[in-house]
């Protein structure tokens, strides 16, 4: 009897001690993603799986807060916009690279010049004409033409600042052992398996909360959710939509979900009949039940789209999702001279969820007499053929990675960007061109919003692209994860995340 009382007392005391000591956090956070890093060189690996890792290692001049979508100073502590073309950045003093050397204006110039010269990422910084070093902590950037999204583009992780002396000394070595100035230092990359990172003691904004990060490559989506359930990983990026309910229902797990910056849409080739006819394009838009597609195929994840830029993008204006009205669609077709409909091809690359989407759209279009055959192509062939304008209709996805409307409108709707650059409807409309040019050359945010509103209304009348839906991004997490905030590009920051023991 005495013994058992003593035992209970000891247990109680131990319990008290452990609560008194406060919350204990794990020293390692493990996350899983579907693909491996393509390249650890931030000016080369622009694919999301690469940036999910490199954005922990490298910083940019300015950055975007994922929670508020506001710009904040990072390597540059402030900047002056001298005139329409000239930006002067003041570099924060005392920022250190992971090898202990100080980051100076020379590194900034070197990095931006390197990014401009890289075929992989130049499109994000090619608005820059010259980068000049004024002194150790001041850099002047002059643009080719007035360019509204300048700061947002410089905040994209591909515009990362790298150490000049390290890259120049041995570029091959830098690619394998990257050195940056971000919150985490690089430790190891075992290709196809994992990347290990360690918190950087001298990070300018304070050391990251969790000491070690491990990124594991787990290609199978179902395996990512299993590993989350078994506790082998703390975060699982991009769960399959059919695994989400299971994660939501599990008290030990949390499902994070936010709208992405990606839109899925059908491009109609305006160089081909009958898609050169505005009434036909409008008719097809009325024939698609977008809400049904989201509910049935995406299990309610995502939302119906009314523009090719997502609501989270600067410059988005809602024209309202086109109502589903097959009767109206038939009337429009008749008015256009196709009372009995017509037949056409819808091309899609060999991705199961995209193919399913196209098959349901095929059924919807057949309701109004438009007989569509869905042709599945391998990605390389799909891109090559649509670049050459051989398609009638094709199903695409596009992400506005800069978070600024110009990025998408210029590439997809400007007449100079036909083909490879992104304009695969081959639209060439002087009014649209004028609005896009006005939008990109203005530095005035309110003025730009007004321009993009007019552009959205105009495009809603032209219907060259049929926006279908905006996808969401999701992350499954152990419920013990604290401080995790998703980034709408998928570049989730991890320096303020910790995991309870």
């Amino acid at each position: 009897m005495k013994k058992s009382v003593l035992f209970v007392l000891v247990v109680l005391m131990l319990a008290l001690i452990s609560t008194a000591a406060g919350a204990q956090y794990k020293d390692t956070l493990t996350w899983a993603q579907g693909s491996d890093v393509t390249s650890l060189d931030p000016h080369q690996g622009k694919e999301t799986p690469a940036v999910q890792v490199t954005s922990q290692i490298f910083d940019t001049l300015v950055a975007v807060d994922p929670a508020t979508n506001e710009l904040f100073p990072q390597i540059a502590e402030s900047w002056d916009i001298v005139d329409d073309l000239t930006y002067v950045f003041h570099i924060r003093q005392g920022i250190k690279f992971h090898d202990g050397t100080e980051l100076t204006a020379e590194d900034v110039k070197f990095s931006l010049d390197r990014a401009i010269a890289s075929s992989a990422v130049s499109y994000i910084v090619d608005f820059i004409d010259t980068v000049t070093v004024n002194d150790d902590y001041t850099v002047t950037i002059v643009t080719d033409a007035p360019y509204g999204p300048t700061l947002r583009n410089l905040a994209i992780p591909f515009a990362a600042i790298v150490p000049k002396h390290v890259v120049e000394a041995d570029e091959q070595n830098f690619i394998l052992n990257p050195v940056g100035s971000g919150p985490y230092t690089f430790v190891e990359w075992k290709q196809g398996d994992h990347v290990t990172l360690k918190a950087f003691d001298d990070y300018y904004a304070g050391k990251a909360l969790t000491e070690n990060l491990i990124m594991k490559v787990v290609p199978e989506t179902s395996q990512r959710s299993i590993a989350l359930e078994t506790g082998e990983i703390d975060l699982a990026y991009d769960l399959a939509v059919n695994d989400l309910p299971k994660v939501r229902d599990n008290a030990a797990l949390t499902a994070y979900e936010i709208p992405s910056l990606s839109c899925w849409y059908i491009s109609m080739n305006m160089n081909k009949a009958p898609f050169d006819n505005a009434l036909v394009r409008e008719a097809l838009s009325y024939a698609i039940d977008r809400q049904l597609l989201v509910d049935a195929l995406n299990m309610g994840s995502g939302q119906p789209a009314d523009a090719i830029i997502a609501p989270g993008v600067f410059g988005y204006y809602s024209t309202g999702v086109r109502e589903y009205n097959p009767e109206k669609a038939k009337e429009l077709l008749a008015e256009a001279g196709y009372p009995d409909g017509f037949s056409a091809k819808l091309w899609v690359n060999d991705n199961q969820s995209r193919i399913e989407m196209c098959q349901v759209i095929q059924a919807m279009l057949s309701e109004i007499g438009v007989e569509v055959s869905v042709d599945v192509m391998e990605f390389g062939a799909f891109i090559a053929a649509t670049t050459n304008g051989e398609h009638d209709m094709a199903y695409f996805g596009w992400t506005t990675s800069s978070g600024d409307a110009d990025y998408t409108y210029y590439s997809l709707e400007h007449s100079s960007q036909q083909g490879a650059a992104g304009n695969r409807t081959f639209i060439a409309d002087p009014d649209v061109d004028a609005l896009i040019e006005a939008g990109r050359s203005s530095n005035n945010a309110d003025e730009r919003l007004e321009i993009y509103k007019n552009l959205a209304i105009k495009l809603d009348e032209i219907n060259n692209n049929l926006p279908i839906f905006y996808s969401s991004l999701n992350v499954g997490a152990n419920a013990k994860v604290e401080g995790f905030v998703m980034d709408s590009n998928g570049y989730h920051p991890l320096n303020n995340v910790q995991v309870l023991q």
Partner: protein
Amino acid sequence: MYKFVLKRLLQLIPVIIGVTFIVFFIMNLAPGDPAAIILGDQATAEALAMKREELGLNDPLLVRYFNYMKNLLRGDMGTSYKNNIPVWNQVIDRLPNTAILAVAGIFIALLFGIPIGILSAKKQYSLLDNISMVAALIGVSMPNFWSGLLLVMLFSLTLGWLPSQGMGSGGVIPVLRSIILPSLTLGINSMAMVARMTRSSMLEVIRQDYISTAQAKGLNDHVITTQHMLRNALIPIITAVGLQFGHLLGGAMLAETVFSWPGLGRLMVDSIKSRDIPMVLGCVVFMATMFSIVNLIVDIVYAFVDPRIKSMYKKGN
């Protein structure tokens, strides 16, 4: 014998030339521009032109093939289109992982496959024979991405005994723990093959006169089974095992994907998707070499099992 081995090794050269030639041209003639695939659908025309120049895609096809072979002779397999890292380093990095998995898979196949095959043959049409042959049929037919997931659900999710994915690191124990499920998944397939092959090959031998003679001499059953039956039945079994092992070394793509195993098969499939031609060629050269070497080893093992074959090798046939 040495002459035989040397001759076989020399035969590797035309094999490598043939394989690289076919793969090089298929990869290059398939629709899709590697530059466009690497840069994605948001690339500008200038960037594409820049990338093509960078990758040397503007030279005529034959010139590129010739250059590739010239470099290959010097041991230079080029750098990956995707990340500029030398192909050699990346392939060498993955090779041991695939080899470990293949050896473990074959080990499981032999450990269970051969005894099951022997027992089934000796007790033909018995309940044991029927059960094990039906089980083998199921084992052969089960796609391993599915059997792998079932094993994960049982051993990782429900019982929590073994890791569900990845290759363990930091010591022998974590690696061993992580290899059990993937090698079992691969092993089930090969085991079934080996068991069926052992059974049919044993059945042929069992009816031979020398077995009756051995039994009439009053030799004990164990000696008859191992020394007389199994040894004579081994040749087809070795051939089957060699082929299985070759396949496993070529990278068991599906099992590697299910278990997030950083092996050669996954590397090659990923590279094909991204039109990373130097990487695909690198993988293919390695796989072809390994397959040829495994075949050579199989042929050498024949000689030890069957003296008639040994004497043939000696004559230089």
